[in-house]
């Protein structure tokens, strides 16, 4: 009886050894890709740039040394579609590329403009290795290759720096938008919403950015930073939103976390700065004599952060006028953003989707020509309420006392 059990045991042990090589890859047999850049060369073929992390140099920094050689290395490959890029790149890299940690995909401006991004993302979406939360960025004014190559000082892995910069700009200033693969594809598919992808560029002379000396100087010659948001229509990049236009769009999309709004006071430009702590935007379409009208109400709460005008903040009556001025300022930004989107004939706010949700009958009729006909003529009424909660650890600005002197 026990001989049978012995044989069974041997067979079991045997299988574990033979199956040794299926999906098992040791950590040192894989090349961890942290970012993928996609460009177009003159011949119309895709050029892929892969940013691979050298783990030794990153972790090494803890013991002080190891700061001299770069923590990332770049490999380039050309091919007709995304999968071909991957297989062609394997000729250059000793290990097989592992994409689960590729948290960043950079699309070149030329690819986005001419070829459009519809055909790019299918490989990414289908592959089990690619995470749906990978961030998407457009390289503005530079090639995707330049952005992926840049070495950065503070964050060792430059992909990390790009992602963190976009997140912090969205949070602090509301000038760019963190979009991941899933959202982009959802917007591409939906007829009622067009995708928005943030732009990123490298300032300073771009050819020095891939040298390590670049990170050794205190003010880096080539410095990547976030700049504006790209507007898409039918998968093609048609326009860039900058400064207040970007902010206005983010207000409508209810993605503002805390941003600064400054207003002029008694002729003095940008005299009072107000930091938004919390805000809630809700957009509700209502049918008005047959045609939909978007009612957008915004409520924001925050503190006065800077006052360089003699206003007595201690009295609440004063702050009511400031609140009105702030509300007017935000309302103007939002209306400009909506007008610009209507001029671009691209519904980046998802009004179409909202109408689809609330008035399906109307939507069925106008779905096809939504972007080109009905959206540009859509009426939108914006109503903003701003509340000032606190004024920091000072009440009246000292300007008020200097008033006695000069002024």
């Amino acid at each position, binding site marked *: 009886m026990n001989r049978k059990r012995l044989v069974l045991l041997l067979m079991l042990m045997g299988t574990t050894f033979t199956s040794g090589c299926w999906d098992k890859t040791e950590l040192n047999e894989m090349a961890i890709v942290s970012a993928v850049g996609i460009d177009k060369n003159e011949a119309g073929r895709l050029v892929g740039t892969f940013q691979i992390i050298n783990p030794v140099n990153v972790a090494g920094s803890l013991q002080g040394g190891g700061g001299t050689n770069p923590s990332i290395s770049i490999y380039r490959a050309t091919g007709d579609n995304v999968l071909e890029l991957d297989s062609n790149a394997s000729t250059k890299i000793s290990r097989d590329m592992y994409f689960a940690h590729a948290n960043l995909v950079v699309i070149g401006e030329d690819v986005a403009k001419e070829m459009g991004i519809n055909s790019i993302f299918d490989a990414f979406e289908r592959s089990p290795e690619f995470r749906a939360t990978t961030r998407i960025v457009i390289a503005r004014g530079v090639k995707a290759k330049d952005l992926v190559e840049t070495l950065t000082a503070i964050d060792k892995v430059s992909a990390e720096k790009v992602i963190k910069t976009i997140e912090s700009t969205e949070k602090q200033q509301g000038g760019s938008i963190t979009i991941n693969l899933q959202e982009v594809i959802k917007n591409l598919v939906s007829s009622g919403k067009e995708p928005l992808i943030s732009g990123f560029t490298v300032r300073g002379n771009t050819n020095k950015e891939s040298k390590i000396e670049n990170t050794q100087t205190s003010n880096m010659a080539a410095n990547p930073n976030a700049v504006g948001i790209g507007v898409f229509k039918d998968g093609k990049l048609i326009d860039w939103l900058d400064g207040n236009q970007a902010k206005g769009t983010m207000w409508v999309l209810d993605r503002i976390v805390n941003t600064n709004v400054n207003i002029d006071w008694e002729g003095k430009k940008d005299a009072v700065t107000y930091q938004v702590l*919390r805000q*809630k935007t809700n957009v509700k379409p209502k049918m008005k004599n047959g045609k939909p009208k978007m009612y957008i109400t915004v409520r924001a709460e925050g503190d006065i952060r800077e006052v360089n005008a003699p206003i007595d903040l201690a009295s609440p009556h004063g702050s009511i006028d400031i609140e009105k001025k702030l509300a007017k300022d935000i309302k103007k930004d939002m209306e400009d953003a909506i007008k610009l989107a209507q001029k671009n004939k691209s519904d980046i706010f998802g009004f179409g989707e909202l109408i689809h949700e609330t008035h399906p009958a109307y939507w069925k009729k106008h779905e096809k020509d939504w972007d080109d006909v009905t959206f540009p003529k859509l009426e939108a009424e914006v109503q903003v309420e701003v509340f000032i909660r606190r004024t920091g650890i000072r009440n009246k600005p000292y300007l008020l006392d200097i008033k006695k002197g000069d002024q």
Partner: protein
Amino acid sequence: MKFFGITILLLVPLVLFSLGMDILLGFDLDNSVKHAFNPFLVKDRAELILFLILLVILVFSFIYRKKKKDNKPKGQQ
């Protein structure tokens, strides 16, 4: 139920009290009403959840005590 009554009886006059103070401060009526309730309009998710939890505890504190009071006489003859 008595506690529920007491809570309402305390809450309503106090809210009117604070509205009165706003009016005494020189705001007109609708402005002070807006000022009284606008802190509740802008709420984080966490704030909302906390508010609901406290409400549930409040209701629970009414009912629970009542049940305990009921079965206490039954429990020990």
